[in-house]
C-alpha cells in the first residue's frame, strides 16, 4: 500500500531492530527503506520521495542527532522521529528543539510508533501542501505586471485604495482596477487569504 507515496526511512545499527520495525511498518501499510548505518542513509536515500525518517539515537560514528543535523545541512527537510534505548532527558530535549516530530523510547509500542509516523506524515503532507501553495503563489506572482506587483505590496501592508493611489500618484479608480486584476491573477478571494499566502512565500509588505 503506497498511500500517497509515503516512505519511512529507518536507520538503526541493530539489524534485528531494523528488520522488525520494517516488518511492522509493512504490516501497517507503510513503505520502508532500511539503512544499517547513518552513512548508508546519507549516501543512498532518495530525498525526493515523500516520507519521514526514524533514527536510532545511539549509533557508532554518527549518532541520531548528528544525522539529523547532517540531513538538514544537506538541504533536505524531512520529519524525523528518534528512537532510543536510553531515554535521557537532555538528549530528548535537544532532539525536540532540533525539530524532531517525536522522541520514542525502545521498546516502542506499535500504536505509539505508528501514531508518530502518522503525525510525521500529516506534518509532511502539510508542509508539502504549504510548499506547493508557495510554489503556485510564486508562479502566479510572476504573471503580475510591475504595477500590479506594486499594488500587491501595498495591499498586504493594509493600505486603502485611496492611500495607494496617492502613494503611486494615480487615481483611486485605476488602483481599483489593478487591484481586482491582481486578486484575480493570484487566485485569491479575500485579502486575508492573500496576506497569508504572501507571508508564507516570504513577500515583504510595502511599508511607508
Amino acid at each position, binding site marked *: 500500500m503506497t498511500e500517497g507515496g509515503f516512505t519511512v526511512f529507518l536507520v538503526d545499527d*541493530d539489524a534485528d531492530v531494523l528488520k522488525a520495525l520494517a*516488518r511492522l511498518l509493512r504490516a501497517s501499510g507503510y513503505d520502508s527503506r532500511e539503512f544499517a548505518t547513518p552513512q548508508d542513509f546519507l549516501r543512498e536515500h532518495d530525498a525526493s520521495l515523500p516520507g519521514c525518517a526514524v533514527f536510532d539515537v545511539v549509533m557508532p560514528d554518527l549518532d541520531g542527532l548528528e544525522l539529523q543535523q547532517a540531513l538538514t545541512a544537506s538541504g533536505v527537510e524531512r520529519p524525523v522521529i528518534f528512537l532510543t534505548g536510553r531515554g535521557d532527558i537532555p538528549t530528548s530535549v535537544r532532539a525536540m528543539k532540533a525539530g524532531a516530530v517525536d522522541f520514542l523510547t525502545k521498546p516502542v509500542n506499535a500504536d505509539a510508533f505508528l501514531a508518530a509516523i502518522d503525525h510525521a506524515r500529516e506534518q509532511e503532507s502539510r508542509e508539502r501542501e504549504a510548499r506547493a501553495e508557495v510554489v503556485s503563489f510564486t508562479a502566479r506572482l510572476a504573471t503580475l505586471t510591475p504595477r500590479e506587483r506594486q499594488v500587491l505590496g501595498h495591499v498586504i501592508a493594509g493600505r486603502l485604495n485611496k492611500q495607494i493611489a496617492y502613494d503611486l500618484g494615480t487615481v483611486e479608480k485605476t488602483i481599483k482596477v489593478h487591484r481586482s486584476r491582481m486578486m484575480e491573477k493570484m487566485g485569491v478571494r479575500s485579502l486575508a487569504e492573500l496576506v497569508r499566502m504572501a507571508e508564507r512565500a516570504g513577500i515583504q509588505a510595502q511599508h511607508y
Partner: protein
Amino acid sequence: MRTSAGRFQRALDRFISDIGKPVAVAAAYFVGAEIAFFIGTLSDRIFAPFWPPNIVLFCALVLVPPRRWWLYILAAFPAHVIAELGIGMDIWQLLVAFATNVLVAVVNAAAMQRFVGEPPWFCDVRKTWLYVLITALASPAVVGLAGAFVPILGGGLLEDFGVHWTQWFASNSLASLALGPLVLILLADTSLPSVPALRTIEAVVIGAALVVVCTVAFEVSAGTFESGFLPALLYSPLPLILWSAVRFGSRGASGAILIVSAVLIWRALNGPSLFIAGDPETNVFALQVFLISLAIPVILLGAAVEQARRAERTTRDSEEQISFAATSANIGLWQHNLITGDFWATDHCRSMFGLPANAALNWEAIGNAVHADDRDMLKDAMRTAIYGSMPAECEFRVVLAGGETRWMAARAHAAHDDEHGPVQLSGLVADITERKTAEHQIEMQRRELAHLTRVSVVGELSGAIAHELNQPLTAILANAQASQRILAKDAPNLADVASALDDIEQASSRAGEVISRVRRLLRKSESRFELVDVNELFRSTLKLLHSELIARRISVSLDLAENLPMAIGDPVELQQVLLNLVMNASDAMSSIATRKRLLSLTTRTTEEGFVEGVISDQGRGLAPDQQGRLFQPFYTTKEHGLGLGLSICSTIINSHGGDLRIINNESGGARAVFVLPAHKAMAAAQ
C-alpha cells in the same frame, strides 16, 4: 652499727674463704698422713705404700689459680712438719720430703691445668687418659728422681736409689689413681646428677661387699700359696669393681679402687704375707703394681661409662627439647623406618591425628584420620618423598573424632643409603588451621570486595545494559505487533508471520544472553576455576560494553591470536578484570577528540607460554607519580572513582598466578597488560 657489723661480717667471710680453705687443706693433709701411717708404712717407717697428702695438696692446687698456690703450700707445711715429727723424722729429711711432696703436687696441678683444662675430668675418656698419664705415670716418675733421696738422707744406701725411686713412684702413682679421681669428682664435678636413695644403698652395699671380699680373699689366700688358687682369689673383687664402675660411672670406679687399695694394703702390711717373696717391701710393691694395673683400666672404664651415659643424656635432653619445642609450636614429629616398618611419632603428633598415645601407629590409622578427599594427595606426597630427591610437602585435612576438621601441613623427606635406597622417612606435621581460616577469610573478603565492585560496575553500566536489553525487546515487540497486524488482515501472509516468529525467538535468546551475562557478573558464588578462553572473554566483554562504547564514541580494534591456549581461572572474575580495564581505557580517552578514541584489544601467547591480553588506549597516559600508586586501594584519578578497580584487578590476576601491569605506550596513551598461566596440556598441544 649495723653497717659496721655487716662490714665485719663481710671481712670475716673473706678471711674464712681466704684462710679457711688453706687451713682445711692443711688439716686434710695432716689427716691423710695419719691415715697413711695408720694403714702402715714400710719397714723404714718413712714410705707409706699409699700416701694421700700429696694428692690432697694436688687436688687443692689444681682447683685454684696458680697465683694462690703459695697460700696452700704454706698452710700444708706445718701439717707436714707435725705429722712427720710425729714419726720422728729428722729436720733435713723432713724438708726434702716436703719439697718433693710439693713438687709432685705442683707438677701435677700445672700439667693438669695446662693440658687437660677445666673440670669435669672424669666424664671423658680422653681427659681421663691424660689424667692417668700425668699424675699416675709421668709426674711421679720424674719427681720420684728427687723423692728417692728422702730415705737416703735418712740413712739409706745410694745403691738402693732404684728401689727408693720405685717405691716413691708406686706410692704416688697409686694415690693418684685410688684417691685423686674420687676427691676431684666430689670437689669439682658438680655436674653429676644427684643419686636417689635406693642407689645410695646400692653403693653402700657394694662398698661393704668389697671390704668383706677383699679381707676374706686376703685371709683365705694366705693358706693357699701352694694350691695355686691365689690369682683367682685376687681377682675375686673384680666383679664388684666392674659392677660399681658400670652402675656409678667414674665415681663408682674410683670409689671401688680406693676401697680395694686401702683394704689390700692395710692387710698386706698388717696381715699374713700374700706373696711368695717373704719381705713386706716386695710384697707391697707387688701389690702396688697389681693395684695400679687394675686401677688404670677400671678408671678408664668408669670414664667411658660416664661419657656414654652423658652422651645418652644429652641426646635424650635434646630430643626432649626438640619434642617440647615442636609441641609448643604445635608441630608433630614422626619417623617411619621403611625397612622394619617401625613407626614413631611424638605424643603431640598422635593427638593431632586424634590417635591415643598407645595406639598402634601405621599408615592405615593415619589414613583413616585424614579427610577422604585428601587421602590420595597425602599418599602421593609421601610417595614423592620416598622416591623423589626433594622433601615433599602437602596440606590436608584431618577429621577428628568429634567431627572437627583441622588443616595440617606435612613435610617429609627420606633418608637413603647406598645399599637399600630409601630407608627412613621422617617429617613433621603442623596444624595450620588458623592460617587456613585466616586465608579463607581474606579470600572471602577479597571475593566480597570483588563482588561489590562488580555490582558497582554493573550499576555504572546500567544504561548500556538497558540498551543492550532494549534492542532485542524492541525487535520482539515490533515483530509480535507486526504479526498481530498481519493476522488481522483478510488474507494474512502466514509465511511472514512464521518469519516474524523466528526473529522473535532469536531476539529472545539474545535478550536472555544479555541477562545471563549480567547475572553472571552479579552472582556471588564459590570461585570455580575452569578452562577459560581468553579470546572469548574479550568478545563477550565487548558485547556487554557494546552500546557503552558506542555512546562514548570509542572505536575498537580487536586482534585476537589464533590458537591461543586456554587459561585456568574463574571466568567471572577474569571478565570483571577485562570490564574494568576496558572501562578505564575508555575513561582515559573521554577528554580527547572523538576520532582519536581508539581502543585496541589484543591477545597472544608469550615466549614463556603465558596467555597475554593487552588493552591499549590513546588517552593521555600515566603521569610519573601515578605509576607506582595505581594498584594501591583507594587511589583514584577519577572524580567519582572509588579507587578499588585496579587494586582488585591486580588481586584477581595475582590470585590466578598471573601478573598485571600498566605502562605508557610509546605512541601515546597507556596499555594494561595481563598474563595468565596457560593450561599445560593445551599449551603443550600448541
